[in-house]
């Protein structure tokens, strides 16, 4: 590969940093609240509220007037930091997108389509390769970043995670572009036929021109 995809993390936290045991929050199937906590005999206990047939949370919570804590199904797994540098420097929120192994997809046609970037919610990442680190490939298998599962951590929780490897600048920008595609929906083709004359158009060039209009625009 002429363009590196991975690099070792910088000393400073950067977008594209990859952590091994970041939380991936699963989709909530039901909204269950954690009630007030009690400490006794070195154990913390709390009631679960909102379970069908049992005690419900307070009216203020149910009316959205008060914060609550929820029981969120989750797994600790590989994740990549999406938060941009400016927000890392000035804010405490850290967004982590789930990094999931390609092998979770059983069908070869599906794997192939993920590699080729045909799914706007899934961004393919190859097995790690790092110059001078021959064992990097053992970190994780080829995977995909799943934009449907993004968890927001406070800086304090993020700072407890170990940044193992990071995306190169080219890979990070590519990831951001994929995120844009995810929000837009349809796949962004590099080339597409002009609807008027059918000539082939370089789509990325069009976008670049659009973002840098001519002086007489």
């Amino acid at each position, binding site marked *: *590969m*002429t*363009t590196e*995809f991975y690099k070792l993390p910088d000393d400073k936290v950067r977008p594209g940093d990859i952590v091994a045991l970041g939380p991936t929050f699963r989709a909530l199937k039901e909204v269950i609240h954690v009630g007030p906590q009690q400490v006794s005999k070195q154990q913390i206990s709390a009631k679960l509220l909102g379970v069908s047939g049992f005690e419900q949370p307070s009216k203020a919570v149910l009316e959205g007037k008060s*914060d609550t804590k929820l029981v969120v199904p989750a797994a600790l797994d590989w994740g990549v930091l999406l938060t*941009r*540098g*400016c*927000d890392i*420097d*000035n*804010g*405490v*929120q850290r967004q982590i997108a789930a990094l999931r*192994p390609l*092998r*979770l997809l*059983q069908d*070869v046609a599906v*794997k*192939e389509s993920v*590699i*080729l*970037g045909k799914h706007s919610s899934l961004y*393919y990442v*190859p097995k790690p390769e790092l110059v001078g680190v021959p064992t990097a490939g053992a970190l994780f298998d*080829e995977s995909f970043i799943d934009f449907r599962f993004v968890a927001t951590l406070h800086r304090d929780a993020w700072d407890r995670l170990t940044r193992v490897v990071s995306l190169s*600048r*080219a*890979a990070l*920008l*590519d990831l*951001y*572009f994929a995120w844009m595609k995810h929000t837009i929906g349809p796949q962004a083709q*590099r080339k597409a036929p002009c609807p008027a004359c059918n000539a082939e158009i370089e789509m*990325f*060039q069009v*976008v*670049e021109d659009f*973002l*840098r209009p001519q002086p007489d625009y």
Partner: protein
Amino acid sequence: MDEPRALRVVLERIGIAGTSSVQELDQYVERKLRALIDVGVTSGSKAQLIDLGALSKEPVAAAQDVVSPSDESRLEAARARWKQDFAARSGTVAAVLARFPVDDVPTPRVEGDD
């Protein structure tokens, strides 16, 4: 039990009730069966595995990927194309994204977020 009803029962038990193709089910069961045997869970017929409830959708098969040589060469071709595409678009994407004034104004602090 007639075949369509048996198929429906199996589909419901393994959690892919939306699947209607016998061939699709067969491929699914084959993949699960091979994976289960490869990871040393069990050996036996498809029916036994289904009866044992071993054919859950998650994560046993995910523990070990079973890819045939022809599938692997197909994936290799896709990976090679991805490498080319990534290298080709990396410069342009960087140029495009550099036009966005993303870091000019920091996101404001929202009360209660800290």
